[in-house]
């Protein structure tokens, strides 16, 4: 995305396609090996810089998950498993057998759930501050409850960089406000309770045995580094890499570092995976 490009411009290049009956918004950018990009709790809105950098090395496929952004929410969708199956349907619809999969926050959880169902669909996996593991034990909370924060507190907690100035919804178009509201409602649909996690995920992550890079902001005020370490430990073949000056929104705070880490990891592990060819 060039500096003058607004998010609306960025979105205007999105493709609309039907995925197993769901009207889906997918941003497709760049050329190269396919990379499935799965967005975080606020939808594609914060991902423009990261997607743009990834598009220099990959053909990036960045869908809005059902309920988020411009993608329809089927009436029967109630949880993360619906979204995980949707992602597999999306790969089928795009004709992609295997892709590099990169998911951030909510999208990291979704990537893990999708690969639990079908581990063969990813060649390499990058998880940026993934949620999805149990977020608390009884009275001890491990992950900040975003639904209990005021809009201002939420912005402060989500990123290391200065939070954006508050936006007066009265100054936005109806479709812009609708996008914001849909993103919030979708985060609630998938993450209200149990709070952004699937209690069964820790018992299933053994199936996701491919080389995995787990990126984590050292200043993550939503899910701390210790939670990230647990996530990396639960995966058979994962490396945790802390990022300095970085909060939960890695895509906002360190898009260049994250993109570089993804490119390096994808190429290096490719070399390890296919040495004789």
């Amino acid at each position, binding site marked *: 995305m060039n500096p003058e490009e607004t998010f609306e411009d960025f979105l205007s290049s999105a493709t609309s396609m039907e995925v197993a009956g769901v009207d889906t918004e997918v941003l497709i950018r760049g050329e190269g090996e396919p990379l499935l990009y799965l967005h975080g709790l606020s939808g594609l809105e914060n991902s423009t810089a990261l997607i743009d950098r990834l598009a220099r090395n990959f053909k990036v496929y960045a869908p809005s998950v059902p309920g988020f952004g411009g993608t329809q929410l089927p009436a029967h969708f109630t949880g993360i498993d619906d979204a995980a199956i949707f992602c597999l349907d999306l790969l089928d619809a795009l004709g992609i057998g295997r892709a590099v999969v990169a998911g951030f926050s909510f999208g990291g959880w979704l990537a893990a759930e999708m690969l639990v169902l079908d581990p063969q669909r990813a060649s390499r996996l990058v998880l940026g501050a993934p949620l999805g593991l149990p977020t608390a034990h009884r009275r001890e909370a491990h992950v900040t409850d975003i*639904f209990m924060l005021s*809009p201002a507190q939420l912005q402060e907690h989500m990123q290391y960089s200065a939070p954006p100035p508050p936006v007066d919804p009265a100054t936005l178009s109806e479709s812009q*406000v609708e996008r*914001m*509201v849909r993103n919030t*409602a979708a985060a609630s649909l998938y993450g209200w309770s149990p709070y952004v996690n699937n209690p069964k995920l820790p018992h299933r992550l053994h199936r996701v045995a491919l080389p995995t890079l787990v990126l984590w902001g050292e200043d993550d005020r939503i899910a701390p580094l210790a939670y990230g370490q647990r996530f990396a430990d639960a995966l058979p073949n994962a490396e945790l890499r802390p990022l300095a000056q970085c909060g939960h929104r890695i895509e906002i705070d360190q898009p260049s570092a994250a993109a570089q880490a993804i490119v390096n990891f994808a190429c290096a592990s490719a070399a390890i995976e296919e040495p004789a060819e």
Partner: protein
Amino acid sequence: MKVWQFSEQAYHPAFDEPGSMRVTLPQRHCDPAEAGRLLNRYLDEYRLADELGFNIMVNEHHAAATCMSTSCMTTLAILARETSKAQLLALGIPLANRSNPLRVAEEIAMVDVLSGGRLEVGLVKGAGYEVFMSNRKPTNFVDRFWEAHDLVLAALSNEGENFSWEGEHFHYRVASLWPRPLQQPHPPIWMTASSAGSAAQHAQYGYTCATFLSGAVARSVFAGYRSAFREAHGQEAPDERLAYLAVISVADDRVTAFARAEKMKGYFATASRLEPQFRNAAGFLPVKDTVRMMRNGPSAMRPKMRDGNPLPADPSIEDYIQAGLMFVGTPDDVYAQLEQFHDEVGGFGNLLMMGQAGTLSHQETVENLTVFAREVMPRLAELSPTDPGRDIRFEAFA
């Protein structure tokens, strides 16, 4: 006109604590002995209301200093034996916050038989902040509400064999109410509305439609109900299907009535003390409603006064009267205010009277109820029934 006494049964000693009165207010600020004294006091006032010829309305909230009634049906189970004449209205049961609607049906049936069939049941969606306590999912809330409604009504009215229920949200092998309700097919059902659209849905079912402290909006709520009722049932909606809730302070002299109204005003000040993120939990309202609310801004939500201006930030008693949220003064004043409002909104058959609110004391509440019952209630029968052919004075509120 049926008049219903209502109190939120506040724990008012906590009103001095800073910050929110709900969700986040620590329970250590509640002295349970004082809570017990207050709850017994409010029940005494309900018993008096029964003796004075009022009907009775109770509500419920959770994690709130403004309302200690955490279960409509628990409160009404007590009042079923403490009272003998009053209709007993739960307004309402926040149905979609209940994980087990069949238990709701059981509670309804039990209180109905205990009270000799005096129960009336409000099934409500409830406020957006209640999902923080019930922890039920805010999304698909309305779907869940209607499935629970269908199940509760099916259970209450069942005179055949026991049945099973495999719904989208609820699943039961056996639905069987012991006891089943005395009133058949079921106790009268109430719902609440703050727009013509939601009132229209209630009209199709023929349920009683109440609107709370909505002032000028009551006019469009009632008009929406009447027109949908006419369309669905081919006749005019009886006035007794419409209800309006307001705060009322009446005394033999105006000075006393206004002084008490100042104490009751504490209800408005405390009920609204809540951090913004709890007002409308993520995904609670349908997307289009949240979009409209966000784009209109907060002032659009404020009730309007007769001059068309929104209620100011710190309204006076006079402002509240002009907005139709309070009726205050001597019996003549209050009757005149009620008559004007009744006329402006096109008539209604139930006055839900907050006869106790805020920090109003027991003795003051007793006097308020007693003067109202003696001086105002008999005159309300004079209010002309709605003439379906007449024009409603829509211009009365700008």
